[in-house]
């Protein structure tokens, strides 16, 4: 944890750092808005509970779900490496 700012200069540095974080978050949000389907855009302004009810599992756990009948020959090490990476990308992992 960062040390508590003690001087005016420290407070200013802290504020600048937070502004930078907000700046990057805004950029990510704008980038997200550009790639989201149009019908999903209102969700960006919705409250968390509305988002929760509107987003089904497909948006989270099924992102990489390759539905179909084709059996793919693979190996355990590769698939698990991909699986753990997918989980990490989705957050909370």
């Amino acid at each position, binding site marked *: 944890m960062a040390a508590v700012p003690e001087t005016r200069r420290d407070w200013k540095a802290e504020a600048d750092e937070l502004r930078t974080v907000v700046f990057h978050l805004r950029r990510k949000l704008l980038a997200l808005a550009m790639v989201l389907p149009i019908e999903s855009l209102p969700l960006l302004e919705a409250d968390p509970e509305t988002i929760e009810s509107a987003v*089904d599992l497909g*948006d989270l756990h*099924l992102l990489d*779900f390759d539905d179909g*009948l084709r059996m793919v020959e*693979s*190996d*355990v090490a590769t698939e698990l490496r991909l699986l753990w990476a997918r*989980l990490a990308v989705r957050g909370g992992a």
Partner: protein
Amino acid sequence: MSPRRVSIIVLCWNRWQLTARCLETLRQHTDLTDAEVLVVDNGSTDESPQRLAALDWVRTVRNETNLGFVRGNNVGIEATDSSHDVLLLNNDVEILSDGWLDELRRAAHEAPDIGVVGCRLQLPDGRLLHAGTFILPDTMWGQQIGALEADVGQYAANRDVQGIVFACAYLKREMVTAVGGLSLDYESYFEDTDYCLRAQRAGFRTICCGKVTILHHEHGSTSDDPKMFERVFSRSRATFRKSWQAELDSRYSRSIDWQSILNFSTGYAMSSREILRALEAAGVKASYSYVYGKGTPFPLEEPENSGDYLLNVISGRKATAAASVVYGQGDVFIKNRGSRRIGYTMLEVDGFPAEWVRQANQMDEIWVPTAFNRDGFLESGLKRPIHVIPLGVDIDHFHPGIKSHPNPHGDYVFLTNFEWGERKQPELILKTFNQTFRRDEPVVLVCKVINRNGSLQIKKLIQALHLRASGGRIAFIFNREFPYAQLGSLYRSADCYVSAGRGEGWDMPLMEAMACGLPSIATNWGAHTEFVHAGTSYPLETRGTIPAKALCPYYDGFSWADPDPEHLRFLLRYIYENREEASALGLRAAAEMAAEWTWDHAARRIVARLDAIGA
């Protein structure tokens, strides 16, 4: 008492770089307090003689010419002290870890009748090369057990084998005294199996020590020259055939014709493969033929190549046995062509279809793997004798020492593995898990799912469950086919296995997970209760039975379990919060699987039954 002193014999011929690497790793990883290193230089003309002379920790014996593998090693054996054990080591190996010699020595002295000890050999690319060898009298062509499988730590136990590759061979002195050196009938190839068989004839066993793995570069001096290889190999093979054909043939004391399925990804096929391997090891000469195909419920033609040498040989044998087993669904029993006709089957509900019973009543006897199925068959009208012949599990590939690929983030991992369908009731585990945990908890459910049914859209089915985004996280491995030898690695990468289906005919994935040492949740109803109990797993209570409604026509009119979601929820949370207790339970499961439920056990039951009917 100090351990028996060992003379390590390294045979070399030119290629100093190989020898140097071998000796370097040997010195790095070997306590030479009770060992000496003896290099037999087989007439090298490169820098080897000078380099060897500079090594004061190595004793060198020089042959003026290249005497070949057999004579070269015999020169080394003759140069050892007669009180020492002997270890033959190729110069194209690398020792990988400390303690290897102590492990081999310990294995050799575990029992007085152990004479030859080999070890696991690994290729430089990480694949397994060898965990013992065998030669079938049908072909007289040596095979290396485990060859080219991804090395996940399989064959980790000390196992009796017919032979070993002499790239690394620990020979106990008592056996060397009784058997002598390598046979001079061979220049190279087959001399190692010949030696192991001679040791056996003298009363000594050969084992492969699973605790030791060394790297083998396979730079044999003849295999690099195809013409020379062909000449030496053919001559040695002919010699071996002359010496051992009759003895290898005489090892079969019983025979059986196995009509089933082998070369598809089905439960019957997978277990057929294991049963045939176990029967071979038990001295039962089995032949195999495909029981399905045109005019049967599974009309596909079977590919000829099983991808496995032993199984291909068995498939090529003629059916001559008195006893013939049809191992498959009961509506193909009628295809049994033996004089003693046996039908071997299982089903996931509490009874058997009328057609299965009709055909079963035309057999001489019926086998089922569980008492659950025996009772169901009898209640459905079976009139013929019925015997419980359990299946088993491959503890060489499914054990707690198998390599894992754990979640690097440290989440607790529940694993389930099934083909999507009514019987497995996937919605139960998905919904219950999602409701039991929160998204921000370090726990995840990994579902390995197979779907071969074109009428099902799995993604839509999952979306229809309306799982909460804030609930427990679920990840899927969908329609991925893994080499069977690697499956243990999947189980070992999880912390707990869940089998919450409505009914099982056996539940091999559950048994494999248990053999790997995973605690498991398993529905407390059906065939698998034969091996599932509270001492080794967490039985999932049911709310009774309900009519079995499914696409599968065999279930019509029968019942299966209705697992209790509340109890599943309780068990998931309980195991997550009591993981040490769960882990201990998993290890007890692994011990019980190894002690009572291997394929060797299954083969012994079949042998006992064949003996009882005089087949």
